[in-house]
C-alpha cells in the first residue's frame, strides 16, 4: 500500500483545504460580516484544527484504517455502511459540482465562446490521470501546485495594492462581534471539506508512528489551517479594500475580477488569464481529493476497485458537472452542499466517532 510522509500530509492537507476557497470566500464572509468579514476567516478555518486532531487521535488508535473502517468497528457493520454510503454520495456530488466550476470559471472569465464541455473534459482528463497515478503522486503534485498557488495568490494580492481605495475598511467593528461569528460559521464548511478528505487519507499514513511523528502530523494540521486561513484572510481583505463591501458581496469570482484589473507596468494587462492556469491546478487538487474520497468509500463499503470503477466515478462527476451548467445556480448548489450536507455530516460523524472511541477506551480500561 502506498504511504505518504508527514510533510506530504501537511502540504496535501493544506492544498485540499485551500482548494479554490479563495474564489467565494470574500463574497461569503462579507455577505454576513460586512466590511469586518475578513476577520472571521481565520477563526472559521481554525474550527478545522480540533477536528483534524480528532481524526489523528483516531488514526493513532486504529492505525492503517480510514475513518469509514473505524466507523464499522465502533458503530457496527450496518451503521458503518450507512455512513459510508452517505460519505460517497456527499463527496461524489460535491466533487462533480467542483468539476463544473472548472468550466464555469474558464467560460466566464477567459474563453466565453468555447463550449463548456471542453473545459469539463480537459479538467476531467487531468483529474483522472492524477487519481490513476495514486496517492503518492497526488501528494507530490499538491506539493508543487500548492506552492505555485500560494505564490500566485501573493502576487495577485501584491499587484492589486495600487488599486486600493482609501476608507473602504473603516470603521472597524462598527456592528460589534456578532457578524464575525456568523461569518465564521460560513467558513466552517470549507474546513469540514478538508476533514472529510482526512477521513479517507488516514489509511495512507505510516501504520506505526512514534510520538514524534504524531506530533509532526498534529503540527501539520495546525500549519495547514493557519497558512490557508491567513492567505484567505489576505484575499478577502484585498477584495474589500479594492471593491468595497457591497461590490465584494456581488462578485462571486471576485479574485478573477481583481486579476483582470491588474496591470504590470503597462506591459501585461489582465493577467487573470495567466493566473487561471494556476487556479486550474488548485481546482484539480480539490476535485481529485473528492474523487479519491469516493474511490476510498467504494472500496471500503462495497469492495469495488479497479479501472472500471475509476472510470465510472469519472463519468458520474462529468454527469453532475453537466447538470449544473454554469453561473449562479452552480454556486448556490455548492453553497447548499457545503452548508447543509458537508458541515453537519462531518461535524456530527467525526465528533461521534471520536466520542465513542474515547468512551470505549475508558470502558475497556
Amino acid at each position, binding site marked *: 500500500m502506498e504511504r505518504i510522509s508527514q510533510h506530504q500530509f501537511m502540504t496535501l492537507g493544506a492544498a485540499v483545504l485551500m482548494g479554490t476557497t479563495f474564489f467565494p470566500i470574500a463574497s461569503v464572509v462579507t455577505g454576513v460580516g460586512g466590511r469586518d468579514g475578513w476577520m472571521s476567516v481565520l477563526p472559521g478555518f481554525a474550527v478545522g484544527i480540533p477536528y483534524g486532531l480528532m481524526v489523528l487521535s483516531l488514526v493513532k488508535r486504529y492505525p492503517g484504517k480510514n475513518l469509514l473502517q473505524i466507523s464499522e468497528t465502533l458503530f457496527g457493520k450496518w451503521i458503518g455502511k450507512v455512513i459510508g454510503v452517505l460519505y460517497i454520495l456527499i463527496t461524489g456530488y460535491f466533487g462533480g459540482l467542483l468539476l463544473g466550476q472548472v468550466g464555469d470559471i474558464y467560460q466566464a472569465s477567459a474563453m466565453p465562446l*468555447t463550449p463548456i464541455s471542453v473545459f469539463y473534459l480537459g479538467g476531467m482528463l*487531468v483529474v483522472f490521470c492524477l487519481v490513476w497515478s495514486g496517492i503518492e503522486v497526488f501528494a507530490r503534485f499538491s506539493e508543487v501546485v500548492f506552492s505555485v498557488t500560494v505564490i500566485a495568490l501573493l502576487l495577485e494580492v501584491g499587484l492589486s495594492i495600487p488599486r486600493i481605495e482609501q476608507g473602504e475598511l473603516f470603521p472597524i467593528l462598527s456592528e460589534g462581534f456578532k457578524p464575525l461569528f456568523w461569518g465564521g460559521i460560513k467558513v466552517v464548511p470549507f474546513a469540514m471539506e478538508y476533514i472529510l478528505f482526512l477521513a479517507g487519507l488516514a489509511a495512507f499514513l505510516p501504520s506505526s508512528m512514534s510520538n514524534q511523528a504524531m506530533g509532526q502530523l498534529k503540527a501539520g494540521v495546525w500549519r495547514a489551517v493557519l497558512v490557508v486561513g491567513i492567505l484567505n484572510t489576505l484575499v478577502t481583505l484585498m477584495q474589500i479594500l479594492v471593491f468595497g463591501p457591497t461590490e465584494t458581496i456581488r462578485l462571486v469570482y471576485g479574485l478573477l475580477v481583481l486579476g483582470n484589473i491588474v496591470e504590470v507596468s503597462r506591459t501585461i*494587462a489582465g493577467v487573470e488569464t495567466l493566473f487561471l492556469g494556476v487556479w486550474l491546478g488548485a481546482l484539480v487538487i480539490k476535485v481529485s481529493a473528492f474523487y479519491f474520497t469516493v474511490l476510498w468509500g467504494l472500496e471500503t463499503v462495497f469492495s469495488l476497485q479497479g479501472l472500471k470503477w475509476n472510470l465510472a466515478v469519472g463519468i458520474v462527476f462529468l454527469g453532475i458537472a453537466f447538470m449544473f451548467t454554469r453561473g449562479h445556480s452552480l454556486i448556490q448548489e455548492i453553497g447548499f452542499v457545503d452548508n447543509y450536507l458537508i458541515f453537519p455530516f462531518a461535524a456530527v460523524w467525526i465528533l461521534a466517532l471520536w466520542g465513542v472511541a474515547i468512551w470505549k477506551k475508558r470502558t475497556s480500561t
Partner: protein
Amino acid sequence: MRSWLKMLKELTIRPKGERQIRKSPSYSFDEDLDKSLSGQTVKDILSKSSDVVFREFFLQGKERIPCMVVAVDGLVDKNLLDQFILKPLMVDLIGNPELAKVTLSNVVDITLQSLLPGLEIKKISKMGDAVEAILSGDSVIFFGNLTEAIVIGAKGWANRGVTEPITESIVKGPREGFSETLRTNTSLLRRKIKHPSLRIISLKLGDMTNTDLVVTYIEKIASPDIVAEVIKRLEKIKMDGMLGNGYIEEMIEDHPYSPFPQISFTERPDVLAGKLLEGKVGMICDGTPIVLVVPAVLTEFLNVNEDYYQRAMVAILSRFVRYLGALIAMLAPSIYIAVTTFHQEIIPTDLLMSISAGRQGVPFPALLEALTMTVTLEVLQEAGLRLPKPIGQTIGIVGALIIGESAVKAGLVSPLMVIIIGLTAVASYAIPTFDLGLAVRLIRFPIMILAGILGFFGVAVGLYLLLIHLLSLRSFGVPYLSPIAPLRIRALLQDTFVRAPWWALKRRPNLIDVEEPRSGGKGKG
C-alpha cells in the same frame, strides 16, 4: 487480427522478469565451449578467423614439449608478446636450471612460478575461459595435449587516447575525457578517487560480444539497495550483442516509454567522480566513452560540471539562464499561439497593433504557421547535425536567413513568428543535455496543438499532464522530480536551482539514502 494484437503486445509490454532481446540461439560454438580444454580444439574453433595467430614452438626442458601461443592480431601487444613471452621461453631460458626440470606434468606450474614474468598471468582449465581470453586480447599458451593453459594479459590495441570530450566542453576545469577503452577509463577514475572504498565490480554483457562492463560506486556513500538493484538489472539483461551504453540504458531504465532521460551520462572523469561522491552508481562499458550514472533526477540534466568550477554567484546566474532557456524552448511557440489566437487581451494595445500588422496577409492560422516553422526548424537541426561542420553551418545559414527571410517577404509567416522560432532554437541550445533537449523538442508539439485548440487552458492542461507524468517517474527508486517533489529543502537550496558556495556544501544531497557526510556534520541528512 489476433496476430497483430499479439505483435502489438510484444512491442509494448516489456517482460517484468528477464530483460531479454534477441537471445542467441544454441550455436554449435557454445557446445564446443563445453569440451575439455586443448590447444587443438581452440585451433578448430578459431582457425577460420584470419586475425587469430597460432604460434607453435617447442619448449626444451627435461622433455621436449610442444607449445602453442594463441592471440588475436590487433588486440595484442606484439612487442610484449615477443619480448616477454616468446623470447624467454624460446631463447633466454635455455640453460636455466628451472627449465631443465620441466616435464609435461609440471610445465604449467613451473612456467607460472619461475619462467614467465608478468603481472596478469593465471592458469585456466575451461575452454570458455580460453576462448574468451583470446578474443578479449589476452594471449593463451597451450602445452601439448594438457587440459590446462596459461593466460597472459598482453592487451594492446590502437585507441584514440585521452582527449577532451566534444559533448561536454568546459572553459575552466580539467580537459581529460573518457575513451573507448575500459581500463583507461577506470584508471582515469582511480586517479580522481584514491580511496580504498571506491568499488569497481566487473560484469560481462552480450552472449556474442562478451562486452566488459564495470559497475562503480563508493562503499558507504552509495546506497547498498541501489547498487544491488543496478547489478540485478544488469545481470538480468540477456541479449547477444551489447555494443554501447544506449543498449544498457533502455534495458535497465524504469520507464522506457517516457521521453525523459532517466539515466544520466558523462564523458568526464571529474563529473563521474563528483557523482559517485554524491552516492550515485556508475556503469562504464567497454567500447564507449559514455559512462552511465544512476539514479538521475530531472534537475541534474540542466546542471553542468562547469557550475562547480565557477564561483557560486556566476553558477547561479548560469543555472537561471538554463532553466529559463528550457522553459522558452518548450513554451514560446505555444504562448505565441495562445496569445494571438485566444487571449489578445493580455497584450497592451500598442503591441497588439504591431503584432496584428505583422500578421496581416498571412494566410495561415497561428497554429499552422508555428507548426510549419517548428517542423522546418527540426528538419534544419536534423540535417545540420550529421553533416560535416562546414556544410552544417551552411545549412544553418541557408535555413535561418534565406528561408526565414523569404517566407516573411512572401507573406507566408509573420516576422514575429520568425523571432519566436529563432528564440526557441537558441533557447533549446541552452539545455546542456542532448537527451533532455530531445524530450523538450518532442513535448513542444502536443503543447502547441493544445494551445491552438484551447488557448492557455490547453497549455495548462498539457503542463499539468506533463507534471503528473514527471511526478510518476522514478530512477532506481528515486522520484524523478526530487528535490522539488518530494520537497527536500536543503538539496533544493544547496545544489538545484542555485549552487551554494563550496564551504556551505557540508552535506551530500539527500536525494538518495547517503550514509556519510561530505565533510564534518551528520550523515543521512
